């Protein structure tokens, strides 16, 4: 049981107990006031008795009342008193002082007839008439279930309030305990933990918190597995150049005449490794969101023209052509280096895959809100299932096997364009070949 359980439990219980105590006191006070002074008898019988005594006194005089009283008192346990102004009873009995005082108070307070009466005689004397409570325990007020003693009331009250408080505290803290368990599990690396099924049909803020947790866990899970896959791919990709390095060293050892060509190979593999590590770092920086530096105004048309010029040399050396066309300026805001890299990767990719003696077309145009760059090759194209996968790191399509590169170019391009708030899409053009379109918001 956590602290919050005890806080809710004790807080709620104290509230219940004080509410019970206040209500109990109020009820007790009310009851007491209605009961009247303890010395005087209340209720209809005693009222009738005082009325009778008053009538007898008024019409028969003191003697008549004395005789009536003597007669009546033999049969009745309750004592009817008729007291004169000096405080003497007509029968000469001893008057209980408390009852006399209570009767006087009743008369004075104007509640005449409530168990005490004052009768003024023609002679000028006045008598006070009242009935005292019979000695012994009070008779039960009315037949009914046996009365409950006050201590039983208290015990039952405490027990039920304890039970209700515990129930409420348990109900409120149970989902919190489950959430804690889920957080512990996630902290221990079990990101597949979900809380929603444990919340059942609960619909409140705590259940919402559980759903939020699930969303967070899912997002973390995706990120972690993407990172893990990337790491796995990187380590796997690093192995190929390393294996070639080992083989080249082995060949050099085996035959001294082969040292020179082997060294050349080793050099080539080393620079390939360097290039790959550079690309992986670029990708990591982009994914970490630390790559976007100060933004400046960049003309996408001018930038693409530069890239196309460089790429044309390579294309022509490989017996391929490249055509560039721009409608006019296409100003965008961004990091020129990063955008250059993205465009270059896409264009080089097209030059690599277009068939011999075909042309890669690079076009820049503007729409109302954006600058659009398209790069279309006349290569084999890719299957529609691969259209989104080409932007995954280290993805090399079936057609890409045996071609140089690490499968990082388009991945880097996509993340760079993303960082600029743009989009990059691949599609198979109807004329055959792959077309990549980059769209960036106009400056």
């Amino acid at each position: 049981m956590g602290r919050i359980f005890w806080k809710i439990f004790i807080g709620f219980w104290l509230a219940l107990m004080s509410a019970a105590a206040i209500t109990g006191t109020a009820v007790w006070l009310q009851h007491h006031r209605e009961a009247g002074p303890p010395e005087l008898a209340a209720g209809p019988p005693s009222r009738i008795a005082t009325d009778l005594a008053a009538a007898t006194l008024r019409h028969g005089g003191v003697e008549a009342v004395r005789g009536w009283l003597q007669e009546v008192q033999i049969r009745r346990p309750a004592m009817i008193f008729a007291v004169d102004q000096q405080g003497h009873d007509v029968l000469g009995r001893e008057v209980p002082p408390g009852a006399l005082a209570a009767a006087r108070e009743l008369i004075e307070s104007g509640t005449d007839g409530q168990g005490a009466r004052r009768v003024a005689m023609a002679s000028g004397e006045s008598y006070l008439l009242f009935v005292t409570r019979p000695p012994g325990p009070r008779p039960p007020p009315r037949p009914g279930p046996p009365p409950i003693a006050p201590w039983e009331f208290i015990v039952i009250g405490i027990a039920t309030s304890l039970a209700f408080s515990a129930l409420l505290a348990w109900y409120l803290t149970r989902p919190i305990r489950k959430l804690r368990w889920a957080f512990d599990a996630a902290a221990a690396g079990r990101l597949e933990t979900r809380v929603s099924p444990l919340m059942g049909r609960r619909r409140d803020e705590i259940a919402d918190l559980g759903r939020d947790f699930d969303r967070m866990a899912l997002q973390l899970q995706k990120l972690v597995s993407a990172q893990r896959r990337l790491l796995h791919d990187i380590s796997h990709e690093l192995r190929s150049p390393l294996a070639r390095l080992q083989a080249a060293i082995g060949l050099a050892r085996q035959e001294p005449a082969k040292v020179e060509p082997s060294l050349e190979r080793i050099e080539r593999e080393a620079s390939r490794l360097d290039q790959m590590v550079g690309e992986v770092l670029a990708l990591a920086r982009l994914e970490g969101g630390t790559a976007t530096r100060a933004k400046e105004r960049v003309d996408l048309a001018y930038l693409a023209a530069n890239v196309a010029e460089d790429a044309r040399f390579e294309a022509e050396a490989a017996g391929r052509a490249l055509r560039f066309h721009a409608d006019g300026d296409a100003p965008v805001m961004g990091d020129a280096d990063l955008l250059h890299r993205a465009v270059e990767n896409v264009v080089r990719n097209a030059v690599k895959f277009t068939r011999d003696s075909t042309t890669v077309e690079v076009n820049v145009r503007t729409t109302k809100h954006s600058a659009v760059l398209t790069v279309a090759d006349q290569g084999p194209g890719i299957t529609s299932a691969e259209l989104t996968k080409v932007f995954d790191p280290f993805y090399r399509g079936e057609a890409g096997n045996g071609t140089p590169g690490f499968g990082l170019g388009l991945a880097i391009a996509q993340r760079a364009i993303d960082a600029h708030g743009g989009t990059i899409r691949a599609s198979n053009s109807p004329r055959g070949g792959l077309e990549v379109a980059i769209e960036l918001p106009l400056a």
Partner: protein
Amino acid sequence: MSAQVLLADDDVELAGMLKEYLEREGFGVATVHDGEAAARLALSGGYQIVVLDVMMPKVDGIEALRQIRQTSRVPVVMLTARGDDIDRIVGLELGADDYVPKPSTPRELVARLRAILPRAKTGASGGPLEIGSLILWPEKRRAQWRGHDLALTSIEFNVLEVLMRNAGRVVSKHDISEQALGRPLARFDRSIDVHLSAIRQKLGDGARMIRTVRGLGYHLSRE
């Protein structure tokens, strides 16, 4: 005659260099670059040993091995990524003779190939080894249990031979690895256990002759 090696690796450049290296070491080498061709050529019967890279496009090394083992007992060495224990165990259980981690030096590959290739035993023990109903002819690479030929892979034959030469004694896994595979046992290496379990399966009711001595090695009893 030089031993013919079939080398399957999708890295064309690497395969070329390894071919060059192996040829200088006196092997005849053919290279292929996918699992499909590897399985087809391995089953053609023209090769004494097959080297399979696990990661290959289309049909991978594991699948090629499965296809080869359906009909052939040609020795197979797998090239597995360093640290990828699952590929290693799966390969061994599918009947690969051994594995070479990638990347590793070509020298290591040659050492492994030499250990696995049926060796022309030099001198010493010419006659057959015989323990109870278990008979083994080292030169002929043949073994029998109760008059029936045992279909052992090259490495399994080597392991059984080591145990029989040391019958009645406990042989450590390390010694078995050195003598049968021609390499020291790596940490957490389960190769010997996998080979032993295959041998026991093939021996059938003879399996009880071989006892595992926990923490020490294996023991082949004399009767």
